[in-house]
């Protein structure tokens, strides 16, 4: 077991190393002049040169990279070109908000998706199954921002039930606060729920046809007990794996949702930095967000390993 854990962490380190090199390469090496990009076409050459000095752009690439990655490990991602504040400050402020959004989305989508999928799998072929399957297929096909738009138009414009913007207001009451979060969370999870429901459904249907289930039924165990005690446990293993692999997609979804609902999280910060060509902020933010993605995958892997004794003897 220790070997497994070491292996996983080793992979994670290697992944982060390669990814950091990629991020640095694309952000600072590929463009002809990152400083010029950041300041725009009309900035004076002196300002650009000043920024070049500050960014250390005249040093060899390897030196720059090592400098960047070692400071990053200490938590120093440099200073944002646009905001003129340490990147780490800006990120820390917003990371918590993004994580809240993602965590709430998770809590919402997993039970719902799994439950719908199980129901569909159990009632396979009947009307309920068809309805669930159809809605999931549609939900998966509508891109995140499109469903967000539909939500806003339906719930905020036509029905006026919920606010269309989601800026957290520290003074707002809890009800206000949660009202603002409903739409973003629902938009974020819609895709996942559809995907999860389809996946779980297939799994559930397969499990229900397997031999040991048939044995249990033939033994005389009531159907409800068969499902609860035997089928469920096995049908849920694969979907958990699928969830963990989907963290990547979730990060992309968070960025889109944050922009759509003006939610001030890390995703919208990243986009702002992209819009302003603030390469230093973009680098740092991308690295942090990718780290979150990679570490959650590793945690998920470890969790699955413990949950499923079958793969332990690999």
């Amino acid at each position: 077991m220790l070997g497994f854990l070491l292996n996983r962490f080793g992979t994670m380190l290697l992944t982060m190393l390669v990814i950091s090199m990629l991020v640095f390469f694309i952000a600072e090496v590929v463009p002809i002049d990152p400083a010029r990009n950041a300041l725009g076409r009309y900035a004076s050459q002196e300002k650009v040169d000043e920024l070049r000095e500050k960014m250390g752009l005249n040093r060899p690439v390897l030196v720059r990279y090592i400098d960047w990655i070692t400071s990053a490990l200490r938590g120093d991602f440099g200073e944002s070109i646009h905001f003129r504040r340490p990147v780490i400050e800006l990120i820390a402020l917003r990371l918590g908000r993004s994580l809240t959004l993602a965590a709430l989305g998770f809590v919402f989508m997993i039970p719902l998706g799994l439950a719908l999928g199980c129901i569909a799998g159990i009632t396979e072929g009947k009307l309920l199954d068809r309805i669930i399957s159809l809605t999931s297929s549609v939900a998966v096909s509508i891109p995140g921002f499109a469903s967000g738009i539909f939500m806003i138009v339906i719930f905020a414009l036509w029905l006026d039930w919920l606010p269309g913007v989601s800026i957290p207001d520290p003074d707002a009451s809890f009800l206000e606060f949660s009202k603002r979060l409903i739409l973003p969370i629902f938009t974020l999870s819609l895709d996942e729920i559809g995907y999860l429901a389809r996946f779980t459904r297939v799994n559930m249907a397969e499990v229900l046809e397997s031999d040991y289930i048939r044995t249990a039924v033939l033994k005389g165990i009531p159907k409800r007990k068969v499902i609860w005690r035997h089928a469920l446990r096995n049908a849920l293993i694969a979907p958990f794996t699928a969830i963990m692999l989907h963290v990547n997609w979730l990060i992309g979804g968070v960025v889109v949702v944050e922009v759509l609902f003006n939610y001030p999280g890390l995703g919208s910060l990243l986009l702002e930095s992209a819009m302003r060509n603030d390469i230093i902020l973009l680098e740092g933010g991308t690295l942090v967000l990718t780290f979150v993605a990679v570490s959650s995958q590793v945690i998920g892997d470890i969790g699955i390993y413990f949950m499923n004794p079958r793969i332990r003897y690999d």
Partner: protein
Amino acid sequence: MSDSSNPLLPKKSPTSDTQKPGEIDRRTRRGSPPGGRLRATIANLIRSYSATIGVVIILLWVFVALAAPIISPYSPTGIQGDKLESPSQEHWLGTDHIGRDVLSRLFWGTRVVVLLAPVSVLFGLMIGAPLGLISGYVGGAVDMLIMRVTDILMSFPTLLIYILIITSVGPSPLIVVISVAIGNVPTVTRIVRSLALDERTKDYVNAARLRGERRPYILLREILPNVSGPLIVDTTIRIGYAIMAIGSLGFLGLGIPPPTPDWGGMINEGRPWIFMMPWVVLAPASALSSVVIALNLVADGIREIEQQR
């Protein structure tokens, strides 16, 4: 009888024709229906309701893309009306915040989607499929290396890669296509690899090897035709993903630069006015969704057919 004149049929190896009576058929390649596989696939597709609907929708949009200059009532970039007009006789979907006709922009925007998405997927395929074939067939250290690299790349959230690339290099249709292609390569490689792994153990591959065929021949002419079925299903779905990705990029402001009409970009531009004139964003959002839904329906249909073969 092997029909070597029909280019749509996978080529059969010469050994397949020599078979003594009573001998077990050791070929594990599926037989081809008479008339060609393409015709059979289309015939089967039409039998499924949902797939037919999907195909019809896609054909409609392709038609719109091709005929955009003819069927658009106005020019997509010129100012023809008041700002943010509601849908009316002159402007069926109203106008946007600059005064451009939404319907015409919608029609012209189809071209971007219909052109860029398949091209990106194709590029991704052109890089990923050979990698996957080599990885799956050759195995060993090469396989391990390629797998490691794809694993690492797949840990990187795709949207972030796109944002990074487009920010440093600058938005343009070419960069969008390249980014989406790069984003697709790891997954395509994995899929082709697992397909190749499946095929590698089959007898016709052994037969070809015993005949002394070189590796490129085996990969290209023996294995590739047989993995094309599932690959086509995957590619169809992937085009849907590419459309969503390009739409998302346009929505985030990282897509095709204005004033070229682009569905994602239209949503981005129209977002501040959503409460005054929702159609500026509803139209492209619905259009995008319909295309992706249609593609998924078709992919489902093809998948069912493949599984029945």
